[in-house]
């Protein structure tokens, strides 16, 4: 049951950790998991919800008049209601299930972009987009004759929003922007961007994959036109994501996938489409994943996103304080107002070698370009090491992480 949330009481991390079987699985004792920006671990409640569906009421939804199917349909649509509440959507039919944030963006690119983008239109992105919010728009621009423009980021890893007025023009049709960078950790002031974009009569899509796990969301307060995120980065299952869209925009869009369950009427040579949200949900959906995502959201609300945010903030400032003391470490991204995603370099050691060294100490971090090659290019590097923290990480994990940095430097010292 959800308990009243107050930021006075802190997240009980020891208790939180007990919900994640992976941490007590034989062989995983001592695992320091610092890759939650890639995917989070899954709590028992989510795993149980999936198992219960499979063992107790597996059946297809919206189709059959028997008890199992009724229960499956109820579970599926209940999750939609939960997600609508969680995101602050005005209507639950504005919540469309997709395979993930990437697919959700592709839906907008295909269903909205291919229909409405015209030659000479401008699409405004930022230089810190994940490839998932860059590549679809490159292709959309190539197909439609629209032009891509980019909001640059500064040396501090902050978007240069002072340039917005110049970048937004009468030709700007779409602004597609991340809510938080998966590399730099930057939290983007999307409200300011949305207001400016709307003043220029542009539609705004927000990629919330890195925001939603860490902070409360209200798509209506933001006035976002489209908002996407992924289940597996917020304790939910893989293979499920959300496309939120304002009703009028979703109505105006073409369907993206055609086939079963997305139709209103089918005749021999033509068909008509179902109403929202089913117009976009062709074929059998990933029903257990939807139900699992619902369970994840219940848990996030129980633990409280404000409390999670405070915990993230505490860990972030604790780790940054220590890294600042180390002269052979470079940290990318802003010092303040950022997510617990720390991209860093150790002088003389390549990111992959750092990651392998950390793995030998049972610390899981990511290395590479993190699907954000525009950032790498701008920073003039080919890869970074990245540690991302979440609600099950402790200050002890930070200490082990910082210690591993010193040990790595020692291990490779002779060759640096």
């Amino acid at each position, binding site marked *: 049951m959800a308990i009243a949330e107050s930021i006075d009481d802190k997240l009980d991390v020891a208790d939180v950790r007990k919900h994640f079987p992976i941490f007590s699985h034989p062989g995983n004792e001592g695992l320091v998991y610092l890759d939650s920006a890639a995917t989070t671990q899954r709590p028992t409640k989510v795993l149980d919800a999936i198992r219960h569906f499979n063992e107790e009421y597996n059946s297809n939804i919206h189709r059959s008049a028997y008890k199992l199917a009724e229960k499956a349909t109820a579970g599926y649509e209940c999750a939609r209601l939960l997600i609508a509440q969680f995101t602050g959507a005005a209507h639950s039919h504005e919540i469309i299930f997709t395979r993930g944030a990437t697919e959700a963006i592709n839906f907008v690119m295909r269903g909205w972009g291919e229909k409405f983008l015209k030659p000479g239109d401008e699409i405004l992105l930022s230089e810190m987009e994940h490839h998932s919010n860059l590549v679809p728009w490159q292709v959309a621009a190539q197909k439609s004759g629209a032009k891509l423009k980019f909001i640059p980021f500064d040396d501090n890893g902050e978007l240069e929003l002072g340039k917005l007025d110049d970048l937004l023009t009468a030709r700007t049709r779409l602004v597609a922007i991340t809510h938080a960078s998966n590399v730099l950790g930057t939290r983007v002031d999307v409200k300011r961007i949305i207001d400016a974009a709307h003043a220029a009569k542009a539609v705004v899509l927000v990629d919330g994959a890195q925001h939603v796990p860490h902070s409360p969301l209200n798509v209506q307060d933001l006035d976002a036109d489209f908002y996407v995120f992924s289940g597996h980065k917020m304790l939910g299952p893989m293979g499920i994501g959300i496309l939120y869209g304002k009703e009028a925009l979703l109505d105006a869009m073409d369907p993206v996938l055609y086939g079963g369950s997305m139709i209103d009427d089918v005749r021999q040579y033509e068909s008509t489409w179902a109403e929202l949200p089913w117009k976009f949900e062709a074929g059998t959906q990933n029903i257990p994943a939807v139900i699992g995502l619902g369970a994840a959201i219940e848990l996030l609300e129980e633990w409280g996103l404000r409390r999670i945010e405070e915990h993230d903030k505490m860990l972030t400032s604790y780790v940054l304080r220590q890294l600042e003391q180390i002269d052979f470490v470079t940290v990318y991204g802003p010092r303040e107002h950022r997510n617990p995603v720390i991209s860093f370099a150790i002088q003389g050691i390549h990111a*992959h*070698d750092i990651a392998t060294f950390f793995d030998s100490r049972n610390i899981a971090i990511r*290395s*590479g370009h993190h699907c954000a090659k525009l950032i790498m290019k701008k920073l003039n590097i*080919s*890869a970074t090491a990245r540690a991302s923290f979440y609600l099950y990480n402790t200050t002890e994990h930070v200490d082990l992480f910082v210690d591993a940095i010193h040990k790595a430097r020692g*291990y*490779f010292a002779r060759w640096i």
Partner: protein
Amino acid sequence: MDLDDLYQEIILEHYKEPKNQGTVADANVHVEGRNPFCGDEIKLTMLVQEGIVQDIKFTGSGCAISQSSASVMTEHIKGKRVEEVKKLFEEFGHLVRGEEHMHEQIDDMDELSAFQGVSAFPTRVKCAMLAWNAMKEGIEKELERYAE
């Protein structure tokens, strides 16, 4: 899984002081290798004449494994016949993937055998193979061109 098996002295020495870095001025083979998952890149230039790799150099950026593997590779294939190089490619692939193989080309004393430790680190196999895959692609392209 001991880290020292991966980061053997020879490997790190090549990382620190790579051999054959640069560009072959009169090269007839130019090829790039890229690891799309991590951004490691390598550019090879080779002069292949009369079925022999006369010269080979590389430039690039990446981890200790990918860069030292490129360095060791260039030392080993320079002066070798293309058929030998292809056999070496096969055997090196078996070696880093930890597959059974005939020790025809690479014996235990060989610098190439230092990469045996990679097999215990499956995520790093692609690093060790980056330069080799590029080299093979380059040689095959050149042979095709020659055949035409």
